[in-house]
């Protein structure tokens, strides 16, 4: 299979991040620790599914193979998904879910904020709308990190464990590869490595407020952008794609 145009591949990454995290969060629906939490997690999931729909739509359009957002979401297998590994991590307990959201949403907010200046107008327009949503996601997650970290002993232990679990996947968020560099030269993509200091400062500040320390640095786990995922993604896809796979060609 010929490589897709760089812009399509880039839009796909952005869409896959949102899609997979939205799918994960929607698993909570009806089962959260409190009604208010249930509503806010569903809200975030809804925003993410919306972003995914837009980004995947652009990817399909640029690719020019008559694949729409649904075809891309429901008819690709793991090797063709290019989301980062962080977003596909299982929900675990509420602290683990919050750790994932906290680390990702701050990254996504910085990314989208920069992307509003992209030379590609479709990406800039999606980012401009989405950055407002993501600012709320980052705030929501930060508030919970502080509540849990500076709450009770059990919540502190769980919050630390959740951050520790997710920390391996942080470096991948900021990793630049050939695709990023090609599009960066054209003014389309963002230099993610340059977002890292701002991200570090935000994370440090919230962790300090939460009386938590930064997890120990470990060897980063990478591979999501090349389609090499954790074992979890295949299961997520088999559930998400079940109807489209069981009834090929059906309209819903």
């Amino acid at each position, binding site marked *: 299979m010929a490589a897709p145009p760089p812009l399509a591949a880039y839009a796909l990454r952005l869409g896959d991040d949102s899609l997979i995290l939205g799918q994960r969060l929607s698993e909570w629906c009806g089962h959260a620790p409190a009604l208010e939490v249930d509503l806010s997690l569903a809200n975030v999931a809804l925003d993410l*599914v919306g972003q995914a729909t837009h980004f995947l739509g652009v990817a399909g359009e640029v690719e020019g193979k008559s694949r729409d957002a*649904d075809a891309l979401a429901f008819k690709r297998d793991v090797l063709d998904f290019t989301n980062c590994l962080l977003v596909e991590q299982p929900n675990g307990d509420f602290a683990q879910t919050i750790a994932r959201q906290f680390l990702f949403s701050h990254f996504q907010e910085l990314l989208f904020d920069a992307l509003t200046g992209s030379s590609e107008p479709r990406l800039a327009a999606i980012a401009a709308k989405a950055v407002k949503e993501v600012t709320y996601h980052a705030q929501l997650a930060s508030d919970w990190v502080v509540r849990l970290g500076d709450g009770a002993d059990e919540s502190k232990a769980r919050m630390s464990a959740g951050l520790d679990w997710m920390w391996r996947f942080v470096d991948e968020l900021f990793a630049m590869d050939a695709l990023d560099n090609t599009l960066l030269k054209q003014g389309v993509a963002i230099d993610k490595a340059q977002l890292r200091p701002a991200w570090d400062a935000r994370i440090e500040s919230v962790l300090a407020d939460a009386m938590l320390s930064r997890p120990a640095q470990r060897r980063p786990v990478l591979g999501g952008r090349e389609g090499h995922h954790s074992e979890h993604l295949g299961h997520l896809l088999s559930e998400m794609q079940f109807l489209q796979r069981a009834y090929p060609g059906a*309209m819903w």
Partner: protein
Amino acid sequence: MYTTDLSGKDKKKSEPIPLAQEDPALLAAFEARVANDEFIEPKDWMPEAYRRTLVRQISQHAHSEIVGMLPEGNWITRAPNLRRKAILLAKVQDEGGHGLYLYAAAETLGTSRAEMIEALHSGRAKYSTIFNYPTLTWADIGAIGWLVDGAAIMNQVPLQRTSYGPYARAMVRVCKEESFHQRQGYEIMMALAAGSREQKRMAQDALNRWWWPSLMMFGPPDDKSPNTEQSIRWRIKRETNDELRQKFVDVSVPQAEAIGLRIPDKKLRWNEARGAYDFGEIDWEEFYSVVRGEGPVARERMAARVKAWDEGAWVRDAAQAHAAKRAAAKLAAE
């Protein structure tokens, strides 16, 4: 969604003050206001029996919204496309929102949300029987929106004029959202009914399974609904169970016909003289057994609620502990 009329089915705790022992002057003034279609507000005097009936009805309604998130939540991760996924997520989130403001309305009557949730988990409080049926295929999501939310609207529209102000106002907002829910459900059924052979089969099967339980949502027949008369007099209810059920049948039959689905009732036929559909006998034994908690997935539903609540205890404790710490720190700084 809406709670089935389960009047008198909650296990009794203590009896409220009987009406006969209320202050006659206050009672007469109260009855006159209600008869005059005025709203009763939280700080107004009200008979204990009125308060108790409302707490029971509103909390059952709230519990139904929350438990009702489960059967539909079952399909969010498997929704067939992005649009359906987003709509279903938004819908289930709406149900949670309804639960939240119904709990808030019930709290104005002096019962806390924690007490109400405890009553649900211990089995003392009931919720709509409809949610104790399983969602087996995607078509069930269509059938629930179309029929269950359709029945809910029938039940709730009159409640926008119910006598208790906070409940009536909550209903205004709930009804707006329910009509969107009903349309999305019918739209799912339309797509399936116009789809492949397998999709049509799914749609018809879902209608077959959800039709009778939907009719049961209106509660027992009028001659077996002991509290109806009192509730109508107090404007807690505005139409009887049988009246609402008939309305629902009359609206739903042409909707099924329009998309080529068959209502699973051999006795269903248009009665020219009544200007309404005659329909078959409801299996009341099934209804009462589901009310008793013997619905096909009643145990799964309650287990899921209790699990979410128990596993979330440390989160709620942490939030409280954190709020207390911050409040103490603020106080110390002043």
